């Protein structure tokens, strides 16, 4: 009986000690939200995952994939093109069923998780504000992409919870509100972030300013050209932020070519943020894939024609322009930035007994650009004739895939071979991703061009502004300075007639300076001139037909007679850009799940 009592007693005790909470244990060997956000260093740890947005596959500009992904924004804009495919906008193959990537809010949630844990952390007030600033910078970076693609997008101020069906199945937030929120967040970040960030190539005040500069111009011009109010507010923000950065970074690097092919961009003047690569830490695939067989990104005749001549005039009026009867003529006396993005023409003899050895031909014209390019880069790391990754010497440019005697690597279909990261000093031999040259994210040259364009849109462009911006970029491109007073209606007879002459020149400079960095598609959409660029048929070089592959087609009549091509004229087949393309389609799967989500007009 005594034993029995004891049992009853112990049961009672057990009952008393068992509440629901008793079984709630946080895992001791893993982080949860409850344990991962206490100290300053906790937040720093989590924040590293936010840097992945610079490689996010849903972004048009991203440091991911291979060399064909870096310039994707310029390929979409048809500044460049992939000669194995077709521009999806020009050929109308975009649909709501097969939408381009972009409708992605996982990253917003990632940032919001950090933001909601700041208040209850054990940090000081300035530390809390710093991490809020960093979070808002990154959230804005992604919202800018969403805004640019879709216009109205759901604004998520906080982490969405399961029971918030009014948000999950809610409508989109109007563009005006989203844009205003982005600006508000970036201004907070500018004021509260630690000026130096967390040291060594981290988000700091200058990065925030660079994003304000980019966003102000993008939203300001979008509003102006798409008939929305308030464009000045955003343009003025671009002006303000850009001016601060121009004071902080007074020097433009003397070497344009090195911006995308330097081992350590800390040493490159005007570099605000970059993605660092280091041997056996993180390495990149771009340098190798650029020098292999898969790079079919090319430039075409219409884009090449937009580069200036060395006297600062366009090909239509420059006395230095020697025509385009041959590729040699076409590239002579032109903006050097063309030569740093498209391999200029040459020819050498291969020497039997090796893949690298070569000799000059007897024709002096064949070495014209070999001599020029080697003289422009005294480091010896960007040698001409160009070397593939193996390395093989490429004996000719244009170097056409499948032509008699051509090699597979570094060949393309129509002759204008796009390159940007060329540096034989970095490791491309050990494997696909061993190169260690860094990739820029924010740099002062973009800011100068943002500033010049914003000032023009604000009606204040002048010779001093040109001197502070565009004319700082010209000397290293071997192009004479811009003289604003000389730019009238007749300055460029080939100008898009819808665009005022000076503005056309500012946009031209932007294209030449930022070619390959992927700004193009955002640019032509915010200018509302996408059709002008996208509908152009991409045409290749003029060259002797003998020995070229049968699949290559040739223009036989008109001003472009003699040029080769692979892709037909979209307009001739009743295709081409449509006005409703300015905003992307929301994926069909999303509008089906949520009937409050209204599709963008036209799709």
């Amino acid at each position, binding site marked *: 009986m005594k034993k029995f009592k004891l049992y009853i007693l112990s049961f009672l005790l057990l009952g008393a000690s068992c509440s629901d909470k008793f079984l709630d244990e946080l895992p001791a060997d*893993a*982080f*949860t*939200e409850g344990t*991962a956000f206490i100290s300053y260093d906790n937040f720093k*740890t*989590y*924040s*590293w*995952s936010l*840097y*992945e947005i610079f*490689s996010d596959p849903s972004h048009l500009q991203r440091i991911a994939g291979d060399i064909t992904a870096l310039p994707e924004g310029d390929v979409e804009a048809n500044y460049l093109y992939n000669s*194995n*495919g*077709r521009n999806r906008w020009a*050929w*109308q*193959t*975009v*649909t709501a*069923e*097969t939408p381009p990537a972009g*409708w*992605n*809010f*996982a*990253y*917003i*949630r*990632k940032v919001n*998780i950090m933001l909601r844990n700041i208040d209850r952390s054990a940090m000081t007030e300035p530390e809390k504000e710093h991490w809020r600033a960093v979070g808002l910078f990154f959230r804005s970076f992604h919202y800018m992409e969403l805004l640019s693609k879709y216009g109205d997008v759901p604004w*998520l101020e906080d*982490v*969405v*919870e*399961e029971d918030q069906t009014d*948000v*999950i*199945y809610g409508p989109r937030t109007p563009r005006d509100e989203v844009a205003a929120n982005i600006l508000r967040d970036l201004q907070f970040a500018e004021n509260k972030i630690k000026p130096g960030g*967390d040291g*060594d*190539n*981290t988000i700091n005040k200058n990065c925030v300013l660079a994003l304000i500069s980019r966003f102000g111009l993008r939203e300001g011009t979008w509003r102006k050209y798409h008939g929305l109010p308030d464009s000045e507010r955003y343009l003025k923000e671009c002006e303000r932020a850009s001016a601060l950065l121009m004071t902080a970074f007074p020097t433009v690097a003397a070497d344009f070519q090195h911006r995308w092919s330097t081992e350590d961009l800390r040493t490159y003047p005007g570099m605000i943020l970059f*993605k*660092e690569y*280091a041997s056996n*830490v*993180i390495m990149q695939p771009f340098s190798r894939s650029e020098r292999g067989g898969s790079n*079919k990104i090319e430039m075409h005749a219409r884009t090449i024609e937009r580069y200036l001549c060395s006297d600062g005039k366009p090909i239509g009026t420059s006395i230095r322009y020697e025509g385009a009867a041959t590729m040699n003529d076409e590239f002579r006396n032109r903006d050097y930035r063309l030569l740093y993005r498209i391999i200029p023409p040459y020819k050498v003899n291969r020497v039997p007994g090796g893949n690298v050895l070569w000799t000059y031909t007897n024709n002096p014209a064949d070495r014209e650009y070999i001599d020029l390019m080697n003289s422009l880069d005294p480091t010896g790391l960007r040698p001409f004739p160009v070397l593939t990754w193996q390395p093989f010497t490429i004996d000719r440019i244009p170097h056409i895939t499948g032509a008699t005697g051509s090699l597979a690597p570094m060949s393309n279909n129509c002759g204008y071979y796009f390159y940007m990261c060329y540096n034989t000093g970095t490791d491309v031999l050990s494997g696909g991703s061993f190169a260690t040259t860094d990739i820029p994210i924010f740099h002062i040259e973009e800011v100068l061009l943002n500033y010049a364009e914003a000032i023009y849109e604000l009606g204040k462009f002048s010779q001093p502004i040109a001197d502070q911006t565009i004319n700082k970029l010209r000397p290293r491109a071997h192009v004479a300075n811009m003289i604003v007073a000389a730019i009238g209606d007749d300055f460029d007879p080939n100008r898009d007639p819808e665009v005022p002459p000076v503005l056309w020149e500012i946009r031209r400079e932007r294209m030449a300076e930022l070619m390959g960095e992927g700004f193009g598609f955002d640019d032509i959409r915010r200018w509302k001139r996408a059709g002008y660029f996208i509908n152009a048929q991409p045409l290749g070089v003029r060259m002797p037909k003998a020995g070229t592959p049968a699949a290559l087609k040739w223009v036989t009549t008109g001003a472009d007679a003699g040029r080769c091509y692979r892709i037909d004229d979209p307009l*001739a*087949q*009743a295709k081409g850009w449509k006005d409703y393309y300015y905003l992307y389609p929301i*994926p*069909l*799967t*999303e509008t*089906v*799940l*949520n009937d409050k989500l209204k599709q963008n007009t036209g799709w």
Partner: protein
Amino acid sequence: MAPYDALWIYTGVTPKTLRTPGMVRANYTWEKVRTLNGGVDIGILQNRLTASFDIYKRLTLGMLAPGMDFPAVAGTDAPYQNAADLKTNGWELTMNWTDKAGEFTYGLGLNLYDAKTVITKYRNDVKELGTPAKRSFYEGMQIGEIWGYVTDGFYTAGDFNEDGTLKEGVVSINGVISHEGDIKYKNLRDGTNSVNRIDNGQNTFTDPGDQKIIGNATARYNYGINGFIAWKGIGLSFILQGVAKRDAWIGGDIMFPHAGQFSTFYAHQLDYWTPANTDAYYGRIYQNAQESHGANQRIQTRFLQNAAYLRVKNITLSYSIPAHPISKLNLKNVKVFYSGENLFTFSKLIRGIDPESLGWEYPHAVTNSFGINIGL
């Protein structure tokens, strides 16, 4: 929040960072299974013939499943809840015959079973179908459904105008520029925006566009047959196994010539469309898998495979040497045997695809064993 190395270099190294936590809810519990079955067992002719038959219905209730299909705005998948039910109806039949005739003993056995499983509850209110890579579940869905298009031959020269555009009245594929030799699909439904155009509509059960259920990947009518016959010391036995009905979508490199940009060709894939071979099995192919290459590889009736098969799992032949010659050698018994595993497979699948796993992988080993058992 699992830790991992950041994709960013800070002071020369990659710092550790943490993954974003998903949504969780606390109140979930075990799933419940309820089974109802009935059966008969019979043995007649002095148990020379035995048979049993079972029929059952199984309900699996409150399975852990995404509470709902979240739109992208949620930023993550919906947390799991006890939100899904499914129902399986099935039956099993086993029959055996064993007998003796003179010095022969022999037997034959058969088993056959089949089941169909249907989702009876799932939070997918719009009955969204998902993508081929990740199918969504929905109420009323039969497990294994294959959604696809109905193939309607190739586009021919007569379908196009001189400038390469499609003629009036010829079916088009949304977002695809078709050429001669490309696969053409049957237009099953017209929508307001989609007249005589191939698309997947809203990609839901109620509006699947021009898709329909073209098959089912569940193995139906699984059967096994075994038998033996023995005469004096000689014995022969076998086991066969098979599936009588199954569809499979193989796709990818093993199915299609030059399936992707970096894919190659296999010998069985050479019958593709060219201007000189318009009566081909496969559609036209494109360099680097560009143009309408992908549209020719959509899940469709033409390339749906019949995955039914019969496999000889085992054959054993043995001989026990009679007692009287071996007893002189002071041995109790000696038995020699041969046994073969997986000797033959009869299947219409592409050579190399195993019909059990449907994968192109390390095949089932064919084993031949010979042996002697000696009893001392």
